[in-house]
Structure formats: C-alpha cells, structure tokens
C-alpha cells in the first residue's frame, strides 16, 4: 500500500463507505434481478448515492440497462485509478470485471510491481490510448481486455463529500442542483476526472464546463429563488420498453421519492400502450400522466448527448426532426392523460370544416426543423444575446443572459440583480413605464457585460398563471373550457399591464398592425396550415363536386338540427 497523508486517508475511507459500498450494493442487486431472483422488501427500494432520489430497484435496473449505453458506455471491464492530490502518484487501483454486460466483481489491484510506474508515466504524458493498451496487456489473464480506464484525483472525493453534506443539511432540490453545478465546475476546471475513451455524457459536460457555457453565481439571484414545480400536483411518467414498464412519480411535496407502489407498477405492465397514461393517472391519483415508448426517447437522447456542444444548425435540425417525429406519433409512441382539448377528435373535425385543418399525426416533421432553425437565423440573426429579466411586481428576481451563435445556445449566464434593482424600483404601473425600465436595463447590461440584442421582461405571476392554465384540467374538456375564460382574461390583463415586455419591439408592432389589417382569423388559419403536411389536390375530375356535396350535406344536417331545436 502507498503511504497516504491524513486527509487523503480520511477521503479514501469516506469514499469507501459513501461511494464504493452503495454502488457495489446496487450492482449486487442488479445481478440478482438478472438471475431472476426475488428481491427482499429491503432490496426493493434504493437511494441513489450522492443524490436526494429514491427509486424502485427494478425500475432503476431497466432504466440503466437502456440508458447506460447511450449516456456512458456499454458495461464492460473498467480500470479505476485514484491519484494523489498532486495528480502524479497512483494511490489506489481497482478492476471492475464485467461479463456479458453484467457486473461480476470489483477487485483491489496491488500497487507493487512495475505496472504502476509505467502507468504513472502514461498519465503524466496525458496519453490515454497507450495506457489502456498497456493495462490490458498487464491484466489480460485476470479480466481480459480493459475497455475503459477512469482516472480520478483524490480531491474529487472531497467535492463529492461537499455535495453529500449539502444534501444532509436539508437543502431543497434547487440547492442540490446548484451544488452539483459548482462541484462539476471545480472538477473540470482542475481536471480531476478523466475517462478513456470519453463517454458521451462526460464529453458533453466537458463541452459545457471547458467552453464556459454556463456562468452562474448564486449571488446574482435574488434571495427568494424561483421554484418551478407546483406544490400540490403529482405527475407520473411511464416509460414502456421492449419487455418492461417503468413508472416514475414526481411529487413536489417529496421531490426525491420517485417510487410507485409495487402493486400499481405490476398492473401497468399488462395494460396496452394506448390506455397506459390513463391507467397510470387513475391508479396513482396523479394530476397528469404521460406515457412514452422508450425506444424513440432513447434515440432522441442519444442524438442529444452524442453531438458536441453547442449544437450547430445541422445538429439542431436532426434533433428537432426526431423530436417532432416522436410528437407526430401520438397514441403510438406517446399518450397523455388528461389529453388537451386540441387533440380531441370532437374538436378537431369541426375545426377542419371551418378551414383549420390541423392534425398532429400529419405534423410536417420533414419540414418544420428547417423552418425553425433557418427561419430563426433569418428572423433573429445568427449571433444575438437575449436578457431575460424575471420580475415580481417592481422587484427583479433574476436576470439571465442567453447568447446564441449560429442558431445554437452558446452561453447561459446570470447578471447581478442588484445592478438592475434601482431601475425597476421606481417604475410606475403600466406597460410604458416597464418598457422604459427595460430599455434602460438593456443599456446598463451593455455597459457592463456587452451588447444585448433583445431584452425580455416577464412577471412571475404571469408565468404562474400560464403554468396553472396549461397544467390544469380546464383545457382538457369542452365542458371545463368555459372555466378557463376568467384565467385567459386575467392573463390578457397582465399582458396589457406589462406582464411581458420585449424590446426592440418594432417588428412585433408592425406584425400586429398587419395582422389586424388582414384579419386575425385569416392569418391564424393560414399559420395553422404551415406545420402540417397537406395532400396534393387534384385539379380535374369529380373530386371537388364530391367534396362540395359532402360539405353541403353536413351543413344541411347541422342546420336541420338547429332549426328543430329552435322549433321545439
């Protein structure tokens, strides 16, 4: 064994108990599931190490089986090297053996012998490929080919300890995410972890942190942080794989608990896909449930993690195409309960008769990505910075600056709220005064941080109203629709009073003037035809006669019903 300092010894002991043992436990249970053994009640639920989440073991197993090859690697032999604080000496080494993608064992590797010195030479030269080949040669008789090599600095464990300490001090989910962000920033700034070859997710994290794509300072946000999840509603996501179903329950009152009752979970397995979301919502008592077929989701996630960041325009077109293809396959690849009124047939067919032929299964997924990506380049430019100012009344809650380059998001950063606070404090009520404050804020940010192309201010209560309307049940049924009107009136009033202000807004004002001049119905009915594929009309034959007769019959029937009702 190598001589360690006291702090290094403490970290190694901590890592053994808090990182190694829990993960070994997960692997052992996974092995049991692979063999088809029945799990004990203690083994049915697992706390995911270094996170506030708890999940069902079986669900976690299936999810890992599908997602691990996409995000990380196909399970294979992994050689783990732990370096000292200076990153030069190997202080620990482990070999994780895998057979047929299943965990077999985790062995401690003795550091005596020449292999350590030579490996340190490769590490110092920063040459991962020869190191991997060399380790394969050294340990071939023990485990075969070494497919992956992980090199971690012992200081990595200190950072992980800080995350766990943050969890134990009862911080919320947002605090946990901030701690993870800060930890990753430190790890990548110092190069405390490396993988060879680099798995997709780590390559993306490298892109984010090495290119400074996120610049966040907790001091830039106002003390009352924005909480995105409603406190009272439960959501369920059901994922149907080839031979399994996984259900994840999101309850804002207990955000770490993703488990679903085993009874419910077993029943969901037997329900056909089209009825899955409804069944999940009913059985779990959730406000909303969404069922997804896992294969297209995995396909989409692969596209997201395998492409370097920031995404170029071609990458965005491919990703959007896959996303829209998923959306297009409503009821075949995804369902939702309760389903929005716009997707219901009894609304869609009359709308079609009125000249609004929208059908989600006819979504032009072959065309829309280009429109979105190239159209936004033409309309917004290829390099622009947007400042999002979130207000609560006249108090600035957060300022987020988004930088776009070549259509992709290049950077997200925060701006000190205290700098803008005086500008909005003195604003009176009304759209114009908020607009003036937004213009001044835009110029102030220009002075301190660089030119802002668009400044957008949004009131927090507008966001809450929109969220409760969209996630509520009022837009899911014709009978409940009238109850949504007061919400809509409130939202429009908020907008008129400056709920959302965009500057420069001359293009929007010109567009609004033109829409009024042309007629809103004509414009919206024209716009609604764009995202959907239309069939080529024939220009000869009896087609139009037939369509005219059908339309006349339908209208005649409707007129007849109305007259009869009026007569009685």
């Amino acid at each position, binding site marked *: 064994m190598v001589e360690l300092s006291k702090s290094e010894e403490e970290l190694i002991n901590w890592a053994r108990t808090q990182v190694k043992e829990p993960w070994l436990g997960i692997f052992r249970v996974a092995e049991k599931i692979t063999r088809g053994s029945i799990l004990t009640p203690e083994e049915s639920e697992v706390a995911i190490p270094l996170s506030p989440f708890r999940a069902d073991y079986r669900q976690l197993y299936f999810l890992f089986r599908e997602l691990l090859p996409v995000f990380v690697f196909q399970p294979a032999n992994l050689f783990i090297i732990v370096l000292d604080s200076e990153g030069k000496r190997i202080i620990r080494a482990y070999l994780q053996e895998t057979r047929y993608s299943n965990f077999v064992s985790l062995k401690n590797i003795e550091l005596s012998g020449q292999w350590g010195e030579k490996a340190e030479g490769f590490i110092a030269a920063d040459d991962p490929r020869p190191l991997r080949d060399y380790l394969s040669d050294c340990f071939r008789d023990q485990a075969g080919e070494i497919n992956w090599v992980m090199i971690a600095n012992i200081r990595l464990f200190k950072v992980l300890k800080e995350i766990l300490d943050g969890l134990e001090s009862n911080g919320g989910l947002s605090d946990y995410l901030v701690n993870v962000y800060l930890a990753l920033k430190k790890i990548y700034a110092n190069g405390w972890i490396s993988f060879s070859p680099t798995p997709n997710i780590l390559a993306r994290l490298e892109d984010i942190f090495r290119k400074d794509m996120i610049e966040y300072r907790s001091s830039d946000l106002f003390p009352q942080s924005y909480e995105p999840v409603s406190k009272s509603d439960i959501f369920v996501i059901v994922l149907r794989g080839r031979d399994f179903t996984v259900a994840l329950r999101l309850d804002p009152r207990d955000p770490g608990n993703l488990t679903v009752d085993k009874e419910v979970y077993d029943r969901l397995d037997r329900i056909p896909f089209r009825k899955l979301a409804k069944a999940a919502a009913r059985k779990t008592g959730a406000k909303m449930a969404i069922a997804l077929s896992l294969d297209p989701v995995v396909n989409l996630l692969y596209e997201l993690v395998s492409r370097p960041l920031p995404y170029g325009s071609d990458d965005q077109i491919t990703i959007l195409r896959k996303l829209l293809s998923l959306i297009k396959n409503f009821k075949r690849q995804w369902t939702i309960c309760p389903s929005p009124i716009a997707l219901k047939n009894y609304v869609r067919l009359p709308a079609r008769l009125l000249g609004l032929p929208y059908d989600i299964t006819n979504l032009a997924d072959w*065309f829309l990505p280009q429109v979105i990506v190239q159209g936004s380049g033409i309309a917004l*430019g290829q390099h622009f910075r947007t400042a999002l100012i979130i207000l609560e009344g006249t108090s600035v809650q957060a300022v987020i600056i988004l930088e776009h380059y070549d259509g992709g998001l290049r950077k997200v950063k925060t701006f000190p709220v205290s700098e803008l606070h005086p500008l909005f404090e003195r604003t009176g009520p009304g759209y114009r005064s908020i607009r003036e404050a937004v213009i001044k804020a835009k110029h102030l940010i220009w002075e301190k941080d660089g030119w802002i192309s668009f400044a957008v201010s949004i009131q927090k209560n507008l966001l809450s109203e929109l969220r409760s309307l969209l996630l509520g049940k009022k837009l899911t049924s014709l009978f409940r629709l009238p109850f949504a009107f007061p919400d809509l009136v409130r939202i429009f009033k908020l907008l008129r009073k400056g709920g959302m202000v965009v500057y420069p807004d001359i293009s929007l004002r010109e567009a609004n003037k033109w829409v009024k001049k042309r007629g809103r119905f004509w414009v919206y009915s024209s716009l609604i035809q764009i995202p959907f594929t239309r069939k080529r009309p024939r220009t000869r034959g009896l087609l139009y006669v037939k369509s005219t007769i059908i339309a006349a019959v339908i209208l005649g029937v409707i007129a007849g019903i109305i007259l009869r009702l009026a007569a009685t």
Partner: protein
Amino acid sequence: MTKKEKVAIGYGNDRIECIRRAFSALGGIGRWVKPGHRVLLKPNIMSAIGTPTITHIDMLKGLYLLCREAGAKEVMVGDNPVCGMPARKHFEGAGYTRALEQIGCKVVHFDEEDWVYRYRPENFCLKDMHIPKAIADADVWITVPIAKTHEACVTTLGIKNNHGILPDEDKARHHRGRTEAGTSLWEKFVDILATCKPHLCVTDMFHAMEGQGPAFGKILEPRLVVASDDVVACDTVVQELMGIDSLTEAPLTRIAHQRGIGLADMSRIEVLGERVDNHRRKFIRAKWYPEVDTPEGLVVLAGDVCHGGCQMILRYLIDTCHIALGKEAREFGPTYILCGDRPPPPPEDRFVLVFGDCAIYSTWHYRYRRKPRKIGPWWSPRPGYADVPGCCPVQLGWLRGFANLLRGYAPLVSLFDGLEIVEAERYSFAEGVPLEKNPRRWNWDKEWARKYAREIAASRPPSYIYAANESIKGNRLKDGVRPVDMDVAYPREYSRIQTVESYSLISGNSKD
C-alpha cells in the same frame, strides 16, 4: 516597389479592443480627427437583425470613444440602407437609436435629411448623384462596413457600403448591370466612391459572413478589425483574409484599382498589426446564378437576365423562400420561375411565376397564358401563373407576386403579402427614375402595356433598353461568359458608349 498604403489589423476579445489596436498601429485616429471636428460614421444597417448582417454597435461605440478622445466636437451615425425602406425603422428595429443617443452619438437618417447634388462627368455611368448634407458638412466621415460575401459583387465591404449614402432615386439608377448598354452595377459603386470618398474605412470583421451573403450566409468569428484611410486597400486586405483575390475575383476593387482610385495590389500594401497569413481563411462564395443550385421545389428558367437586376433580386427570393418552396413542391408540385428575356418555356402550365418586365412581355405568347387563370377547388383557387412586373421587381415586390401565386396553397409565403413595399412602377432600376420621366410606359401604364403587349413580344425586347450599337450587346448565356470575366472599359473609352435613357440634368438625355 515602395509600399504606398497602410492597412492595420486589430485582433482581440472584443471589438473595442480590436479598434484600439488597429488605430494604435496606424498612429492613432488623431491623424485624421482633430479637436473640434464633426465626424460621421456610416455603418451597414441593412436589416433589423444583428451580426453578421449589420455592423455591430460596439464598432460605433469604439470609434465614438476614439473620436471623443481625439477631441471631436460631434460624432454622428447615419445610413440610408435599403431602397424603399425607411432608415429609421432599421435603426429602431436593431435597437441602435436609443443606445447611440445614450452614449452621445447623434443618429442621422439620411432619407429624412437634406441632400447635396454632386456632378462628376469622368464617372462611368452615375455621373451625377445626391449625397447627404450631413456627409458634406462633416469634417471626417468614416465608413464602417461589415465583412460579408455578396451574391452580385462577390463581397460587400467599404466600396459597396458607400451605396447607402445615396437617396433611393439614385440607388435605383444603373443597377441592372448591362455594361454593353453603358450601365454597370459595379462601375456605379466605384463612381460613388470616386465622387465621395470616405476619410477612413474601418471594417468589422469580428463576425463575418460567408455563403449566401449579404443576408442569408453563415457566421464566422475571425475577431478582427481592419482599418485604413484607403478604402480600396482596406477592402483588399479584408478580401485577402477571406481568401479572395482582389485583382482577379472581386470586381469592385479591380475596377477601383484600374481607375486609380485606390490600391488593390497586395504587394503595395503595408499590413500593420496582425499578419494576414495567421488569419486567412477561404470563405465560401455566394451562389451567383439563380438557375444553378436551385433548391428543391423551384425550377428557374432564365433567359437573358440582367445580373444586377432580376438575377440578384431573384437570388434573394430563392434564399428567403427556399424552405417554404420545398414544402410546396412536395405537396403540390414545383414552382416555375421565368426571368429574363425569352426564357425557356415551362414544362407544366401551372404554378408559373413570371419575374420582371422582360419575362412578362417576351412570354406573352407562351402556352401557359392560355390556360385558366385560376385552378384548384372553388373554396380556395390558386392562380395558375402570376406576373411580377418591374425592371426589376424592387425590394419585396417579388414577394407580393409570389404570394399572389401561392395564395391559398402556401400560407407561409402568402403571409408576406402585407409587407410594405415600394411599387415597381415608381422605382425602376432602369436609368429613368421618376414616373413622369420613365420612358418604359409598360411599368406604370397598364392599358398601354396591354394594348401593345403582342407587338412588344413579337419584336425583340425593346431596342431602347440596349445600346444603339446592337453588335456589342452580347449574350451572357450563349457565350458562357461570366460578368466577372468581362473586361472593364477604361474611362477614356466611355465616350464611345451611348448611355440611353440616362437621367441627367446636364445632358438632358431623358426621353418622354
């Protein structure tokens, strides 16, 4: 040979830093801007969206700071970017007006101010023009272009940026690009430079555009600013950084060099600051001909088309609408665009867009015009063909025609119908300008045009479009000669070419 002109390149993390480095290499802006001077900056604000389409505001801020440090009394920013569009809308749309006023710059919208007449008989085609009074009164005026490729001129830099100092009436003149008729788009830009030369050229190459410039290309980030007091030399160095040869490929610098207005010979330019070799990169050129590389859904049938007129505007149409056209093609079939004099007939007699006066009147007898004007179901008929009149169809007039064609079937494009445009009858790219003096009656007198359409179509295109000497007319498509390869006539030979329909107060050459 002794080095004659100096051009400085500044490199840095932001534009203001780059400008400072470039001017410190040149010896400071104080060599040109003296205490008490009034300085005018002329950027390229051709649209409301940001870089790399328009000059970044940090360039203006950086120059403003330098000028103030040099003791300038007033710094103004002015432009008249796009023919038919108010300059005010561009500045406000980009958010520049309030921002510039806040730092202390005065914003001048040239189209709202007075003009000063200038006459220079040595010019090739644009012998007289109007320039803004603000430029005439300024002690120093600095052109601040942004580095972009261009469909008609290969690049749009300092020389091309000067086009924005003219009023719309002068902009419309000599834009068609018929050298044999004594009119040339490229010569015109050099004429403007010869008449009103800026004191400094500071090119924003922090972000640049390659591909389908000047509006639809791809962004690059060289992080450079190039400055010089010789506009031509400055453009030459920028083109060198873009991988373009200024004497053989780029027409504007070639013509300006040949005329002796500036230096486009790299061997005679001293580059200060950064080295060109460290930053050179081959930019993708803009596609030139509309009938080549047309996107899916569009078939362009071009006859003899003016390269600075219908060809350039048609290229804009393709670049703007190509996304929508692909959808329309898949759903309804391709759209055929006829442009130029005597284009090939379309294979189908439906969804034909006839672009420009030459195409309208030379295809009057084509078969598609005998088909019903409306096709499709009774509740949403679509025109079988649509004419877009004009010589050439100006600005967004082509969108209106296109929208008419696709009404009811192509909502994406027909939404453009309501945009404000300048009517094709009022501003023609022919040499004649105002309505009363425009001899091309077919532009504004529809009855006359209808009455004599067959006679016009039966004969050659009106002979008064071209020079009196028909033997030098040439046919670009027949000979396969590209405009960029054509020899440029030297000033001493200009007198041999009779400019027809030239609107000139002095020569009185207008025909009523």
